[in-house]
């Protein structure tokens, strides 16, 4: 017999062992404090090695974040193979878009990634403006940056809250949803809607911000980092959290690029690819912010990257409030922007513009454009093809969740069934966007 000691089980409250390494709990140490492998207990059951079992997870499972169905082949509790099934929420958005004028497509963009509706509105409007050849006003650009960063914050907050619940923590969910409610209050004050905002137009926005709105945004921006710090204090070094996140679903940098991952998924793998920095839009290159990258590419790094992105979004918002210029929001071009109602009823030319726009819709020249933005999930692209009529020939959504999810069979392979939940949560999927 070796001189193995009886196992000391410690509950690590920091999540780190004596050597400062992240550690699963409970864990065993020998006399010198170095971790030793736990010996498996003798089998009580007859040898079941090689017997594989088929487990169906979803589409109604609460931890699959929507109607995702995973068929898992298990050896014991270890996943041997994963076959995802999607499409339960398919609505044919791209088909419908071919029968709608450009401004009429914007409501559909709300409903694909419904945690990021304003961001999608902005992305679609940017793509359509490229196709129309419109340059938007400076004030509109800054307002759109504010919208995009606010929607990044709410999307990451939903991700944070639901992932905490998946992994076993309830309190951060309440804290993050409280802050999310504050952002929705801001949307409501400005836009009138909360979830499905439909707020951009080709060439501008539905309305300018109301009086005093920027002050309430300022108050939010000042208070919000406190919540991030609180969640950070409770979660980041928590032993259970670290134990359930570290080392799961690892994607190396090369794999992440080859699988087409984007957003926090690719950045956690150490690839500093951020559309805002590398293929900028809305003058993002003039804002001072950092792109956080991970070094391990696991679930824990994805969490760290998203937490840091919350702080960076606050930085961008602060700068946007500073620089918000005066001036018009919409472009002065009545081929795309409706004239004011008072003029449409009193001025002949405005009435014609109004009539033509409502009945026929604005027509872009023949051409095509692919415009990608950095949505909270990753690279979200809208590819639009125009044949000169007022409706797109083809409206294609490049869905980041869809491409990120396609790597799940690779990520869960060899992990435990309970870890599938954590890995799936870390992808941050919205099934509305995956299925469209």
């Amino acid at each position, binding site marked *: 017999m070796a001189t193995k000691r009886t196992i000391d089980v410690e509950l690590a409250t920091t999540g780190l062992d004596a050597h400062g*390494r992240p550690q699963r709990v409970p864990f065993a140490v020998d006399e010198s404090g170095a971790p030793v492998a736990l010996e498996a207990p003798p089998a009580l059951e007859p040898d079941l090695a090689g017997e*594989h*079992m*088929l487990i*169906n997870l979803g589409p109604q499972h609460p931890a699959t974040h929507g109607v995702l169905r995973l*068929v898992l*082949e298990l050896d014991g509790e270890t996943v041997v*193979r994963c*076959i995802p099934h*999607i*499409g339960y929420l*398919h609505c*044919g958005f*791209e*088909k*419908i878009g071919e*029968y709608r004028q450009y401004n009429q497509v914007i409501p559909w963009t709300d409903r694909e990634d419904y945690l990021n509706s304003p961001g999608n509105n902005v992305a679609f409007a940017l793509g359509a403006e*490229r196709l129309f*050849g419109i340059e938007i006003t400076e004030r509109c650009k800054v307002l759109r940056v504010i919208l995009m960063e606010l929607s990044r914050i709410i999307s990451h907050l939903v991700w944070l809250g639901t992932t905490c619940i998946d992994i076993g923590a309830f309190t951060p969910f309440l804290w993050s949803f409280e802050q999310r409610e504050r952002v929705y209050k801001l949307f409501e004050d400005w836009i009138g809607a909360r979830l499905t905002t439909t707020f951009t137009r080709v060439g501008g926005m539905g309305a300018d911000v109301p009086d005093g709105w920027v002050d309430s945004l300022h108050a939010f921006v000042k208070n919000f980092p406190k919540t991030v710090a609180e969640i950070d204090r409770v979660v980041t070094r928590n032993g259970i959290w670290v134990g359930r996140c570290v*080392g799961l679903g690892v994607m*190396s*940098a090369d*794999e992440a*690029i*080859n*699988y*087409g991952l984007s957003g926090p998924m690719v950045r956690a793998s*150490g*690839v*500093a*690819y*951020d559309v805002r*920095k*590398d*293929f900028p839009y*809305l*003058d993002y*290159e003039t804002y001072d912010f950092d792109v956080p990258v991970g*070094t*391990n*590419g696991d679930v824990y790094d994805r969490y760290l990257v998203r937490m840091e992105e919350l702080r960076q979004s606050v930085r961008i918002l602060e700068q946007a409030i500073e620089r918000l210029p005066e001036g018009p929001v919409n472009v002065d071009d009545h081929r795309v922007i409706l004239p004011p109602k008072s003029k449409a009823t009193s001025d002949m030319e405005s009435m014609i513009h109004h009539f033509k726009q409502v009945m026929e819709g604005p027509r872009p020249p023949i*051409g*095509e*454009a*692919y415009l*990608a933005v950095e949505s909270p999930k990753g690279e979200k*692209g809208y*590819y639009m*093809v125009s*044949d000169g009529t007022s409706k797109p*020939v*083809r409206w*294609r959504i*490049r869905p980041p969740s*869809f*491409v990120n999810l*396609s*790597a799940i069979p*690779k990520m869960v392979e060899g992990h435990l069934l309970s870890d599938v939940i954590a890995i799936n949560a870390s992808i941050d999927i919205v099934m509305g966007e995956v*299925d469209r």
Partner: protein
Amino acid sequence: MSTSFTPVVVGSAAPDTPAPATPRGVAHRGGSANPSVAALQQRFGNAVQQVDVVWGETNIVVGHDQLLEIVRWLHDDPGQRYDYLSDVTAVEYRDPERPLEVVWHLRSLPFRRFLRLKVRLARGAAVLEVPSVWSVYKGADWLERECFDMFGIRFAGHPDLRRILMWEQYKEGFPLRKDFPLRGRFSRSEQLRQALAANPEARYSKEELSIADAFEDLPDDMRRRLTAGEKTGE
């Protein structure tokens, strides 16, 4: 945990180029083409059928047969390094004479370049088929499956070309084709009839069951139905 890897810096292969900036005043047609075009034309000659710059983005129409070779070269060549596949999709125009276009959006992260490759598929072909780029980009897996599902374009060399958004027994055709009506081919009552006739018990395809040993444990009648070729929900 000693698996940490060093961060990859985007744009590292072209340190001398100016920092990326929001494009302004983009011209409808014309403008500087992507530098990869010249290299492609030199390397592949006639396979590059057409090049144009629309709204600042370079479109390259290439020959159907050389597509995979071109994509592989763009991915591997140290002067190009198109390592990121953004999207695979197709475009069908309203004009029934115009060929279908399959579109690949490629990005070179080291050089910060963006390129659109197209292959034109003539009308009237019995089978619409292009080569799959799955062997170069693993991310093409689901994108190609979706393109097949929506347009009926087959990707030769794809390891698992099945429908992805529609269910496997979907019989109405390919929804994003222009000859497919917005409401679908079948009437509402026919769709309802099919939904009610579906067997909710048959939740797994035979392929799925056969990967595990669970197939042997199924009730006799279900095993018989699956062996006879019945699939999910039929």
